[in-house]
């Protein structure tokens, strides 16, 4: 089915999220929609899916104009969506999830589960999925859950499938498998819209690429275009894609973690007897798929976890059992993985956020009183140094873009004397230009002789920054490998397997590593 969007405009108050966007997706093609976070990709797709009504413009399917009042209309017209965060009910079986919203009934209003099971089997067979219709969704790995979403869309005869950032939650292997599935769907005649900001995936699978920036279509590209070309279209300027770093020159071990376990509030062992050390002047990346204990590990170091067994010592000083404040005072800088939730107070100004974790002592506080003159001067200086773009230091942080918010967090954490720097998901959800900046500052921190831990689920980021990589799987460290370990090996380790041979690549080959 041919999908055409003509002049779609969507405004939210004064903000134009989509500005006269034209898009044509031909039958049987994978059309990548490339753009930074906040460029307007998801808004456009929500318009297509009937969740938002466009202020202007038309949606055409096979040259017929469509009016969608809600997702139901869009689905009936043949549009399916695979959401970034799956819209599945964990306690339902695969078949129940697939029939949800489109239940077939037998006489007396009883659900026709057998028909749903048959449908699941039929579609699974068509694409070679091995999927039990009676399995509980909760028990399935993330990659398989995504297939349930795909089957759900296909079971309603979707001719146009929208994948919204489908690879964000997948391991590299699962990503590869998804690419194969998308190829199969295309060959079967389905039109696919593939939303992403990862250049590598786009070049691998897309037939055509449309690039969106600030709500406008800024160009079309062929998959043969280079990473640099695509990135500069996305960002609107030339971008440095590689992280320039010298070889690490590590000193002694500064942070020693041995036999560390963390028990969460539900009594589950979320970090399982983990031991590692971080030396001065090196970056240890902790890789792994989201939810394998990395978050809890970094929180344990900072003192945010209640039940911690084992030992964490920084320069000989034990950190276990210390309050968060004491850990920070001891010289630990921390970038939390969810900056809106844990890192910043959105209603506070930039200046206030810059002193958030130093509200006890000089220079910001003297005799219980805030030193506002000093704070303002400090904030002016740091916003300049860290290139925070805003309308002034009194702007509430909640109004900044993700990248600028993250720079505020970095500015706060890096302007103390650090003995350890822990950055969790330092570039999640921020624009390419800011990613470049954040990575540069992390490498600079390392070069200043500070031990650095980077927790990341993005393999590209891990490879770009790490001197050594610890891969976590189900709370344990699968192995600690050199920073130039090949992606295939890392991917296997992220799935919990320990390969016999650790293959490495030449560090020069990580071109395009940022994306």
């Amino acid at each position: 089915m041919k999908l055409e969007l003509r002049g779609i405009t969507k405004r939210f108050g004064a903000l134009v999220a989509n500005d006269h966007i034209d898009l044509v997706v031909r039958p049987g093609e994978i059309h990548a929609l490339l753009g930074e976070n906040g460029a307007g990709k998801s808004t456009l797709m929500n318009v297509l899916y009937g969740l938002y009504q466009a202020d202007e413009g038309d949606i055409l399917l096979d040259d017929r104009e469509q009016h969608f009042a809600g997702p139901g209309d869009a689905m009936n017209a043949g549009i399916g969506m695979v959401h970034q965060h799956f819209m599945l009910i964990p306690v339902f079986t695969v078949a129940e999830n697939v029939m949800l919203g489109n239940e077939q009934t037998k006489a007396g209003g009883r659900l026709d589960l057998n028909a749903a099971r048959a449908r699941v089997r039929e579609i699974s067979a068509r694409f070679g999925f091995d999927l039990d219709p009676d399995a509980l969704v909760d028990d399935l790995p993330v990659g398989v859950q995504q297939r349930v979403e795909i089957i759900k869309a296909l079971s309603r005869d979707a001719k146009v499938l929208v994948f919204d950032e489908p690879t964000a939650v997948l391991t590299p292997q699962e990503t590869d498998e998804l690419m194969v599935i998308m190829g199969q769907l295309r060959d079967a005649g389905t039109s696919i819209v593939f939303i992403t900001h990862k250049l590598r995936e786009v070049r691998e699978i897309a037939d055509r690429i449309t690039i969106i920036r600030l709500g406008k279509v800024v160009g079309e590209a062929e998959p043969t275009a280079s990473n640099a070309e695509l990135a500069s279209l996305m960002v609107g300027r030339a971008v440095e894609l590689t992280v320039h770093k010298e070889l690490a020159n590590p000193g002694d071990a500064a942070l020693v973690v041995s036999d560390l376990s963390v028990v969460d509030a539900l009594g589950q062992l979320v970090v399982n007897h983990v031991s590692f050390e971080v030396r001065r002047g090196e970056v240890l990346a902790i890789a792994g798929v989201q939810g394998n204990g990395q978050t809890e590990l970094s929180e344990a170091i900072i003192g945010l976890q209640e039940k911690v067994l084992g030992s964490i010592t920084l320069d000989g000083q034990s950190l276990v059992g210390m309050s968060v404040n004491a850990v920070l005072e001891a010289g630990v800088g921390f970038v939390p993985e969810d900056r809106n939730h844990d890192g910043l107070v959105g209603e506070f100004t930039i200046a206030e956020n810059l002193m958030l974790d130093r509200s006890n002592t000089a220079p910001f506080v003297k005799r219980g009183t805030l030193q506002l003159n000093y704070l303002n001067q400090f904030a002016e200086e740091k916003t300049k140094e860290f290139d925070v773009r805003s309308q002034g230091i009194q702007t509430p942080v909640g109004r900044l873009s993700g990248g600028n918010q993250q720079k505020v967090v970095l500015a706060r954490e890096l302007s103390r004397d650090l003995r350890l720097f822990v950055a969790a998901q330092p570039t999640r959800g921020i624009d390419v230009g800011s990613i470049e900046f954040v990575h540069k500052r992390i490498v600079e921190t390392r070069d200043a002789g500070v031990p650095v831990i980077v927790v990341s689920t993005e393999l590209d980021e891990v490879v770009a920054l790490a001197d050594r990589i610890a891969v976590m799987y189900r709370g344990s460290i699968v192995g600690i490998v050199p920073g130039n370990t090949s992606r295939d090996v890392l991917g296997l380790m992220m799935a919990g397997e320990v390969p016999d041979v650790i293959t490495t690549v030449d560090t020069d080959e990580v071109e395009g590593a940022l994306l």
Partner: protein
Amino acid sequence: MSDTRVAPAPASGPAPDSAKAVAPAPKSNQVLRDIMGGSVVISILAVLLALVAGGILIAVTDEDVQTASGYFFSRPGDTFQAIWVAVSGAYGALFQGSVYNFGALDFAKGIKPLTDTLTFATPLIAAGLGVGLAFRAGMFNIGGQGQMLIAAAAAGWVGYSFPLPYGLHLILAVVAGIAGGAIWGGIVGLLKARTGAHEVIVTIMLNYVAVYLVSYMLRTPGLLQAPGSNNPKTPAMLPTAVYPDLLGSSYNLHAGLLVSIAATVFVWWLLSRSSLGFKFRAVGVNPNAARVAGINVKNSYITVMLLSGGLIGIAGVAQVLGTVTTGFSSGIDAGIGFDAITVALLGRSRPWGIFVAGILFGAFKAGGFAMQAGQGIPVDIVLVVQSLIVLFIAAPPLVRAVFRLPTPGVARKKKPVKLAKAVAAK
């Protein structure tokens, strides 16, 4: 990862990131934030709307208006005339009873209503500050009644029991009152911090405990009951413990007002200049970020409830050492603990906003009596107006709709985002 960050979240469907971007603070925090986020304009318009609605009520309940409306279609002018007389008379009396009495013989008598307003405002300001301070730290302190009663009991006990020299006695009594309120509030903070008990439930329950505890003490000889009396009432305060009159004995205005003003300055300093207040505000808006930044959230709950109870204690002290110095009974709180919530909301939990709101409510109290006495309009109308003010403040979209104001989130919030991006793109 999703582009919906700046878009309003749709009622349903897949915009998971927008839900994630907003800190999932407790719902009550969000409500508080909405209320406090309203502008001064909304507060003023809410008062205006409430007065208009009150005017309608006055007109509808007025007998002359009812009579005149019986023959509305033959002589509509009469009805409007009657409405005008009723409403203007009522609000005129309200004004003359609370600001300046034009019928008085000289200026000294004419200005008396204003001093009455300030007298009524004195405890309202202090208690409003207590509630507002708790609001700013994310706590709903509706235990003003209990905290006031305990404070009044403590201050009163010191005030009538110990003959002490002038000055020292008053100071001791005030300190005892503040301490009483602080302890009663501090219990709430302690329970929340240690056991996670919700402060709304705890404060309500502690109100009952305080009411019955003080009633019991007032009925028990040897505790608070005046010797030789069967009434549940304390002895009169000793003159050494009483707040001195500010403007001489012909006015009721007492030095408690100065304490309330000092409290306002203190809370202003605390919230906008002190490190403690900085932590309170951080905890109030985003407790998660505060915790990650090394702020002890649980200790903040305890400290803020101590301070909040202490401020409300000042209101209790003003009642027993300023307003009713002849001995008090269990009704000494006079509903101020609950009015304080309204005052704090109207003042948007800002110290000087609360100060102004406290004076406005003091004027309603002073003027309400004059309105009833002069025009025969029930004082309940004033209560309705007060309640409507809260209602309108709690529903900013309603006020905006009535006055056709733009939605702030759209014009004010979105624009800077876009500008920032435009800069970033260069």
